[in-house]
């Protein structure tokens, strides 16, 4: 279920809800940090009230090729994500991180040649990309495309209404939707005129990233896959974006986050760090893995 169900009224979103979230988040990140344990991921759940954490995503021996050339990129990826966990994938350029993210959301450039993906108990591979999205899977693109001729607000409105249809709720007209989306702009510290511009057209690198997070804020997600939301951002922008993510997602949501740098992890605390190499996850550990990487580079963990 999407978290940002549209039944929230405007008021509750801007005042009480966000306060609750901020508070909830600091708890959450602290908890997450304290419970890193590769072999016992369930320990974090016990801190939160005892119930076993629900399995959200299970990737088994996933291999994929580029659809055109049949060139293998993913060569047996294994990953399990429970509700509320924050997973970070790191790895050298070209190791397959973005490909993994895009395969998860059903990008047509890739063909799955082996293994399985289960999301909320369903076979994800059988789902259309738009079904995956409305089922709460959200990916922020490393390089989002521009769509000339389609205004940002119309695009968001279409996407939001698709989500509402799925939930059996009435769609929002442009004026109602504007009321819903305007406060979210503040959340990502985005200028209002970007709503009336065409989707990503002429947006700076930082504006594109913020726009991705704005979409996350509008649509909500059970599993947010964030592909390098920190690249190309200045220090302040990085803080804005990370803060926004923390406010948008509650402790029940899960994150799969791709990054090259430790600094993002200071804002969004990971449960696990995975290292991807040549289409596989070759190592999993806690934040110290990222710290070693930052200090000594990939040779240190080879």
């Amino acid at each position, binding site marked *: 279920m999407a978290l940002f169900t549209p039944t929230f009224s405007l008021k509750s979103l801007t005042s009480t809800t966000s306060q609750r979230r901020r508070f909830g988040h600091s708890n959450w990140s602290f908890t997450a940090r304290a419970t890193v344990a590769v072999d016992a991921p369930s320990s974090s759940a016990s801190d939160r009230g005892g119930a076993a954490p629900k399995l959200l995503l299970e990737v088994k021996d996933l291999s994929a090729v580029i659809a055109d050339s049949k060139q293998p990129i993913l060569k047996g990826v294994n990953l399990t994500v429970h509700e509320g966990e924050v997973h970070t994938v790191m790895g050298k350029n070209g190791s397959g991180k973005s490909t993994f993210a895009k395969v998860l959301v*059903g*990008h047509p450039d890739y063909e799955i040649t082996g293994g399985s993906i289960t999301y909320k108990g369903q076979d994800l591979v059988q789902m259309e990309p*738009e079904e995956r*999205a*409305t089922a709460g899977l959200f990916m922020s693109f490393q390089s*989002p495309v521009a769509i000339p*001729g389609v205004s940002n607000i119309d*695009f968001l409105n279409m*996407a939001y209404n698709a989500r509402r249809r799925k939930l059996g709720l009435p769609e929002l007209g442009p004026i109602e939707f504007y009321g819903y989306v305007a406060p979210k702009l503040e959340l990502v510290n985005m200028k209002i005129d970007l709503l009336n511009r065409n989707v990503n057209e002429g947006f700076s690198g930082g504006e594109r990233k913020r726009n991705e997070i704005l979409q996350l804020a509008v649509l909500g997600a059970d599993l947010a896959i964030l592909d390098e939301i920190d690249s190309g951002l200045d220090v302040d922008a990085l803080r804005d974006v990370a803060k926004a993510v923390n406010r948008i997602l509650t402790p029940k949501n899960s994150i799969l986050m791709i990054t090259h740098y430790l600094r993002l992890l200071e804002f969004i605390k990971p449960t696990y760090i995975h290292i991807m190499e040549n289409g596989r996850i070759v190592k999993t550990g806690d934040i110290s893995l990222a710290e070693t990487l930052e200090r000594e580079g990939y040779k240190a963990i080879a």
Partner: protein
Amino acid sequence: MATTNSMSISTLNSYYLPKSRTPPPRRSAYKPPRTTTTTVFAQPPTLAILSDPHVLRLAETLEDSIAASSSAASPPLPLQKLRDISSQSLLSTPWPSRKDELFRFTDTSFIKNSEIQPIPPSEMQSIASLSILGDTVFPNLAIVDGYLVDSLSNSSGLPNGVFVGPLSRLNSEDIMKRVSKYVSSFQGDLFWSLNGVGAPDVIVVYVPEGCKVENPLHLRLFSFNGSDKDSKTLPISNPRVLVLVEKGGEIGIVEEYSGGEGNDKCYWTNSVMEIVIGDGAKVSHSYVQSQSLGAAHVKWTSVRQESTSVYELIEVSTGGKLSRHNVHVQQVGPDTVTELSTFHLSIGDQLQDLHSKLVLDHPRGVSRQLHKCIVAHSLGQAVFDGNVQVNRDAQQTDAGQLTRSLLLEPRATVNVKPNLQIIADDVKCSHGAAISDLEENQLFYFQARGIDLQSARRALIFSFAAEVVQCFPDASVQKKVESLIRKLLDPALP
């Protein structure tokens, strides 16, 4: 030319065409005598060698229909002049073939192989009461099958000195003089001349010096008579409009073609509009063509721009089995501005053709042309021939042309021929042509946000058209065209 006197096609026909009747009677017995035509030949015109029998027969049919329907009074001089010039030129104009450069990609055999039937004016009475045209808030003229229908028109509220109406009702000698000067000052192709022979009258839109007409004038052209698909006959109408805007004047024209419930009615609209824009004057021309998918729609727009004048054309064409728009803009003074924004949509087994020609002969002209088309049917075709001539004296011209085509079906066809001919050396010219399908990455971006593929495609197609649709200066026209395109793209929508 072989003769200096006015002549008619039929007389020549009877001399030079292999007919079953025995020559040389000038007029066959069943034809009513004509009052307006004198035919004197000093010698047999040699140009008749180039005559195309098919063209002459068609011209004769049109002439006969005009003769039969017009009143005893002789037509106003400019109209007579138009008919004469047109008749003359038809004598040496063959039916275009695919070998003609201008018709290389445009197959006109659909018209050629049909029996062409002129529509008599009497049939207009019956529809006078029908509310086929919908509402308009603007001063407007209803032109049904090429004839002005007064009861459906309302041209009140126009400023003093503005004349809007048929040439035959023009009382001002001064305006008549001006009109005389410009009627058929340009020579088009076969279809142009056929219109000149077949037009029952000329609708004149005259804007005097310095007069800025606030509301756009809405010309509502409707095709009422149509034949069935398999009948092989095409009722023809020949509307003709002359827009004359004097120095410093301004007007907006909304020219809208429709006709035919359902989409298989067959008819042929063969229309001409001439526009003369004086010094510093401005014409904003909106053109919307959504005729029946069984129709032939051939249209000429010829524009003459004097110094510092502005002409803008915004066109959306979606109708017709065969639709061709010829736009010819001639610059006759410096510092003119010309903006052409056009969008063609081929949603079925149809051809959408734009042939534009911009001739720049004077310094510092600015021209901007954007042509977009979508072919969304495997039997659909779009043609664009965009010629821009920047001649020797047109220094410091700034000419830009851009064309983009979207092919949405495997065998959909587009023939694009942008051509810039630049003789002046100090000019800024740019052009670009792109043909593509919808971008996979863009489609996926929609899907990744939960929007299904079909809605995503529709949004992208719609946005492709929007770049042109947004140029319509009048919001109500914009809205109307938007919903027209929406409906065509998704017939399931209300």
